[in-house]
């Protein structure tokens, strides 16, 4: 079992309590302003692509042509990847009502998405966005739509789209996602002045990025590679295995860090006189992202073949990226960590 790099258990990373020692407050505030803008841009993208997805779902159900189906799948992909870019933000309005889980309930080892979708398809009575609003996180987000759009057993069943009940569910979930995207975007802009004037948010944002990189390395990539536990490779532990986009989602999340987080952080590092660390981080991100030039969108084909070593190469680059954040960025900016919600098993 080729475990190149030992996985340090997440539970030893104590996260969440964070301090930020300001270098010069005016520069720090500029950095926070930049971070707020960039992340706001990410949420706006999520909003726009989610609206397009909801429109596309309605259009497809009105006219279920092959062309409309292709467009629907593409719109799902764009909205889902928009979510991946901003997924690292684990504070602010996203904390309300388990919104992150509502967008994407993951991991789902017991295939709850399938059983909850099936449950709602077999229920009688009205099925609208209002039904979905209270239906539980497994049926409220992108994975439930992914099931409707890609699950082979479902596509071959008599309930396959564009069956009426399935179309109701498709449009209801799409509208629920669009609604949530508006909510989180509006909430983000509402807190602009609070975010920009609260120095704590600097560390909170850095901590969110660190946590996101660890989750990518350990759970989104390492777990399906068999680098956790006792070594079994399992494609079902990855994101978006149904649509074959497991690696594409990781790329999008890294792009999100590169475009929505890194510029604002760079300003903070400059202000702290640590421009060299800024450059090191940028280089690590570029290096990690360059892996995807030669990788397919999905992970499954690589898990049991010659492609495995390209996953290992990506894993190592994520390890190096995590090290820059933990060993260089965090101490430089005085970020310390407390209990992690992932402490536990």
């Amino acid at each position, binding site marked *: 079992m080729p475990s190149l790099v030992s996985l340090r258990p997440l539970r030893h990373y104590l996260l969440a309590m964070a301090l930020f020692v300001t270098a010069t407050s005016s520069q720090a505030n500029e950095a926070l302003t930049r971070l707020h803008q960039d992340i706001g841009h990410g949420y706006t993208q999520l909003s726009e692509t989610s609206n397009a997805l909801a429109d596309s779902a309605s259009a497809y159900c009105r006219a279920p042509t092959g062309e409309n189906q292709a467009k629907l799948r593409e719109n799902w992909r764009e909205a889902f990847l928009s979510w991946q870019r901003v997924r690292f933000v684990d504070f602010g309005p996203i904390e309300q009502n388990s919104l992150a889980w509502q967008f994407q309930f993951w991991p789902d080892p*017991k295939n709850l998405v399938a059983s909850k979708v099936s449950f709602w398809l077999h229920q009688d009575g009205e099925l609208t966005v209002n039904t979905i609003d209270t239906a*539980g996180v497994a049926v409220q987000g992108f994975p439930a739509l992914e099931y409707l759009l890609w699950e082979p057993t479902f596509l071959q069943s008599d309930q396959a789209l564009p069956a009426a009940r399935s179309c109701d569910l498709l449009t209801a979930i799409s509208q629920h996602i669009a609604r949530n995207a508006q909510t989180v975007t509006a909430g983000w802009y509402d807190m602009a002045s609070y975010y920009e004037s609260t120095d704590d948010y600097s560390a909170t944002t850095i901590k969110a990025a660190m946590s996101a990189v660890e989750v990518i390395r350990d759970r989104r990539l390492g*777990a399906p590679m068999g680098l956790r536990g006792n070594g*079994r490779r399992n494609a079902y532990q990855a994101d978006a295995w149904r649509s074959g986009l497991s690696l594409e989602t990781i790329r999008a999340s890294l792009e999100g860090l590169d475009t929505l987080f890194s510029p604002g952080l760079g300003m903070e590092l400059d202000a702290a006189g640590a421009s060299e660390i800024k450059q090191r981080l940028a280089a690590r991100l570029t290096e990690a992202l360059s892996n995807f030039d030669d990788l397919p969108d999905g992970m499954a084909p690589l898990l049991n073949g010659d492609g495995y070593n390209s996953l290992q190469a990506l894993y190592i680059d994520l390890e190096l990226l995590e090290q820059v954040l933990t060993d260089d960025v965090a101490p430089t900016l*005085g970020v*310390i960590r407390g*209990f992690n919600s992932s402490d536990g098993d």
Partner: protein
Amino acid sequence: MAVRQHLKPLFLATSALTLLVACSEETNTANEAAPVSEPTTTARPVDQAAVITHYADLAQATYQDALTTAQHLRNAVEALIANPSDETLDAARNAWLAARVPYQQSEVFRFGNAVVDDWEGQLNAWPLDEGLIDYVANDAYQYELGNDGATVNIVANTEINVGGQTVDVSTLSPELLADLNEIGGSEANVATGYHAVEFLLWGQDLNGFEAGAGNRSATDFAAGDACTNGNCERRAAYLEAASELLVQDLEWMVAQWSPSTTTNYRHELTSMATTEVFQKMLFGMGSLSLGELAGERMKVALEANSYEDEHDCFSDNTHNSHYYNGKGIENVYTGTYTRVDGTVLSGPSLSALVAETNPVLDAELTQQLQASMAALGQIKAAAEASDNPTKFDMMIAPANTSGAELINNAIAALVAQTANIEKAARIVGVESLQPDDAGHTF
């Protein structure tokens, strides 16, 4: 199981200034809100080594109780197997429920003490794909995606094949069952422990969000023609071996905490630097409180309306498992444990140590621990009500707002106390919880 990113501790409410104060001066007696004067009575300083010794005593007593109750369980299982009847099955189920009380209180020792964490999977792994062990209903069995072992049914077969690996399971010994854990690489392949025994005593709970637990008949263990669902002798042998393994494992852990030898974990622990041990104590409290109990064991099940993620899903005893997890957290802080025979073990506590430096924080955390016990107590009370009891799997049903409120209250209380557990860590000299920042001062 894999952990989702869920509960974020909500420290935004606590200002950075507070933390700066709490961090920078260990001896600072001031609370963030208002400075507090020293207690009027001059207490003797709390002996740090005595707090640690007492922590080890608490662990030993808790594991000893877990062992005693597991022995009762094994004896009840033997009685069931010798004479399967409704009465002997009930007695075995009651013994299992009683065994959970001390064990769940012991889980606070798990996080931070590797000797426990590395060992506990064999006793309390969860959730499990029970089709590994015995028969399951075809249409109501949701197992882990990609798990080859999820339907092999060890009871019904003398040889199984999981992921290309063939294993002779003709003789169901404790050792064999232990070796079968995580066969094929899936964490859901749980062959041993409390939940394997629970499944064999209760069977699958096929009632979904409705009232009712698993309903296995005693005749599943009957000899000859009276046997239901086949393979009764192997089922009985499995149950007996799993019960025996539980006893053996707990014997080993009791020995690890015994004061009468110098070659065990207790000796190792009590030889460590005091702050290192305090870190383990508080880390255990915080991890169980936040990530495990509030997160994995409550929030996942609630938010996804998933009875597959219910902790004691076969017996519907989840309310008690949660309650006694919470109790364990309180025990470590207050240095008090009520043993199964009713006697109370108490001694030098973390609470006293924190109070010495910051009595306001100590009072607040003590109150929070009581509040979380009250919230967990509400869940327990609703589940055990004589009139229309609402079990945990009913509380998490879609649109059960009152059930969701009970669970959310408990989650909120556990999250709130975790914030002060972190503060307490700094008070007792655990300066940085992040190794990479060691030596950093703020």
